[in-house]
């Protein structure tokens, strides 16, 4: 059976369905529609494995498509970035004082 994440990141597999989002705009929409509790739960699990995850992904040749499990891990790292800004900078899902405005990310 193929797994969603590389062997050593198995305990993060529960996050893949929710936060393994490749599309930048969808990641952002997911962030602003989450509660702080939800964002912190993902952040607290993911951040401590961040460095190791980046090193793992970085072993692969950038000019080749990533294997599916490594691509899922990379998408979790992307989501960690999106979520970390809410946790570390704004202390709320949206940018402070921005009401319901967001930018649409095209690419």
């Amino acid at each position: 059976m193929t797994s969603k994440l590389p062997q050593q990141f198995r305990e993060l597999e529960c996050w893949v369905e929710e936060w393994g989002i490749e599309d930048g705009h969808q990641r952002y929409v997911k962030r602003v529609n989450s509660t702080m509790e939800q964002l912190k739960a993902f952040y607290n699990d993911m951040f401590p494995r961040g460095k190791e995850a980046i090193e793992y992904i970085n072993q692969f040749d950038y000019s080749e498509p990533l294997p599916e499990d490594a691509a899922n891990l990379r998408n979790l790292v992307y989501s960690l970035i999106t979520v970390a800004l809410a946790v570390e900078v704004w202390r709320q899902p949206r940018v402070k004082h921005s009401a319901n405005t967001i930018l649409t990310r095209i690419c």
Partner: protein
Amino acid sequence: MSDDPIVKKPESGFWHDAYPELGRGPISLEDSVCPEFYEKEKEHVFRKNWLCVGRVEQVPKKGSYFTRELAILDTSVLVVRGKDDVIRAFHNVCPHRGNKLVWQDDPFKEMEGNAPLLYCRFHGWRFNLDGSLIKPSRADLLLDFDGSKCSVPAIQCDTWGGFVFINMDPDNKQTVRDFLGEFADGLEGYDFDGPHQVYKFKAELQCNWKIFMDGFAESYHGPYLHANSFGALTEVAKMDAANPYTDALAYQLSGPHRMFSFYGEPSKETPFSRPIEKLTESSPAGPWNKKPSDKPLPKGLNPTRSDKYGFDSFQFFPNFVLIFSSSGFTTHLHWPTGPHSHIIEVDMYFKPPTTHKERISQELTVSFLNDIVLEDASPLEGMQAMLNSRALTHFHANDEEILVRHLHKVVQDTVEEGEKEKNKNIIAKQGG
């Protein structure tokens, strides 16, 4: 490149002293509120000047095209690379009966693609990529028809630095290079050519386009508006005196265009770096692990030759902002959709990553900048609503807000001169 600064603050300590014609008093805010002014702005500012609509990389091959839906010009623009490799612009309309020419599914959705010719889906008329008619369908039905007078209507098109510009004024005689003037001289030699790693964002905001541009025309709002994002740093920066963190290194005006050069948080670890910045080795100023460019900076960048230099922001008239940083260049295009609303398009052009680590570092930079743009935009819709209340007639600009003063003056002067010229022509016609 000479290391001598090309701009220095006047001895008096006020940038305004370098540009006495600007004035120093309060500025009328009518140009950002009044619907009648908006109509005149459309006519004299947007329909008579070069407007950037995209990049040459969007039309890479013969037959490549893209469309732009531009409410401020009351038209849809079609940009096409011809069989002769010339990039042309047209009104996106079939000259037979006026059907919109290139669109799919939704006539108001912008699109891009590649086609050997331009084909109208209504009656099957075909046009060459240079707009000329190949063949109407059912030639047997034609009446008093001259095919040479039935081309897709052209719009002037020109390029500079890989940017595609259009000009709606059929009487325009100036190239885009001449229009951009001495700022373009100073950018000569900059490596605009791709390939780029491109990140694009857009939003429609309920504020006048100039109000947004004003927000990116000075940096002294930093410690106040960006108190949340640049927290600890801004505590150092809040002082009632000349401030090396937030005062621009230089302001320059050139014809209708303007620029400022600004101190930047270095793209390396600082005492203020957040955990996610350390993890991804990156900050809003750019990835820490990027290789320095082997090309020297063109003479117009970092005009004070400061070692504290972070970025240069050029505001080309009317709505094209071009920002340079150590990561690459970013454009802001502002497209009015009404007197109190506009679409902002933010496009970032970075060096293509060569490793996954570099790509992840870029992701932090673009994600952080996305949030900073929202923080910059955060006061603007409330501000526009209060300007619309007409409680105020004027606003105030200090010495660090010289570019704000300049933008409003150039727009107001352009409208005034355009109206004068128009009235003169009307009187001349009546006299004749």
